[in-house]
């Protein structure tokens, strides 16, 4: 009961019983939700790990290529080469609902369909290392997008799982035991009241008999 005062009335008892039924049902549902979220989360996080390793490796390699390209070219030339990009990426995002968690789903569109538009410079004055570097980055880009989608999904799901877990625990270890204890307390109290009323009535009956007919209790 944890120190809370409850009114030992029949109305309170019905109310608490209803509350307990709701709590038990809620607990079961939340537990199912947590289990399913956890299953999907673990799948997703494994995928996330795999993608991240691949992306980190890809970007690392691309960075090395860029470093080489920079070494072979003047800074100004490089800056002008990448100053005005021809290609432009835009992103569409849909919210996908996974067990009431909204996770984003990305699709990207390039402005022009031509894959070679990532080379926004004339080839005459730039080193061929730059082409390779830009290409290696372009290769890793689809993975980067998948990583963004996956990682964000994981983060959002992790937050939701934590919340759900707390709710399940609160229901299981606090709410439900407390309600059960209260219900027990009230039903005991009601039974006790009923017994005491019974006894009182018997006593009154005895007293009234004695007064009317002079009967005495045979035991006295």
């Amino acid at each position, binding site marked *: 009961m944890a120190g809370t005062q409850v009114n030992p009335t029949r109305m309170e008892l019905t109310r608490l019983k209803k509350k307990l039924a709701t709590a038990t049902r809620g607990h079961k549902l939340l537990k199912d939700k947590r289990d399913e979220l956890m299953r999907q989360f673990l799948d997703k996080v494994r995928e996330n*790990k795999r993608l991240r390793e691949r992306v980190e490796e890809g970007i690392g390699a*691309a960075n090395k290529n860029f470093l080489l390209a920079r070494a072979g070219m003047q800074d100004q030339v490089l800056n002008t080469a990448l100053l005005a990009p021809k290609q432009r990426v835009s992103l569409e995002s849909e919210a996908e609902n996974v067990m009431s968690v909204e996770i984003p789903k990305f699709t990207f569109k390039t402005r022009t369909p031509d894959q070679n538009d990532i080379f926004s410079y004339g080839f005459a004055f730039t080193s061929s290392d730059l082409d390779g570097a830009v290409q290696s980055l372009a290769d890793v880009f689809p993975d980067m997008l998948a990583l*963004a989608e996956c*990682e964000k999904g994981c983060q959002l799901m992790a937050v939701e799982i934590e919340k759900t877990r707390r709710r399940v625990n609160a229901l299981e270890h606090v709410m439900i035991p407390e309600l059960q204890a209260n219900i027990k307390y009230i039903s005991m109290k009601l039974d006790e009241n009923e017994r005491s009323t019974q006894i009182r009535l018997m006593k009154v009956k005895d007293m009234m008999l004695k007064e009317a007919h002079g009967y005495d209790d045979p035991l006295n």
Partner: protein
Amino acid sequence: MYKIGVLGDRDSIYGFAALGLEVFPVSTPEDGARALRNLCDQNYGIVYITEAMAEELAPELERCRENLLPAVIPIPGVHGNTGLGINMVKRSVEQAVGSDIIFNQK
């Protein structure tokens, strides 16, 4: 229709401009924080951020974590992989499961 931004030191990110992403070269954490906040308010779906910069902006990243968009994703910069990105994934696992059960299998 969303845009994709890349945030970090110039050397690490200038290549992304060629792909058609929008690059925001920043050198100090203060500039980075300001730029990231700007991107969060604008129409950006994904913000890639170099790990070195992400480390400086941990509180800002924390703020973006629970929003649906933008997805702020750390990527390794030109100075190499600091392991921050994989640590963030680890943190998600720890938050969800209670202990790290994915990455400690060596």
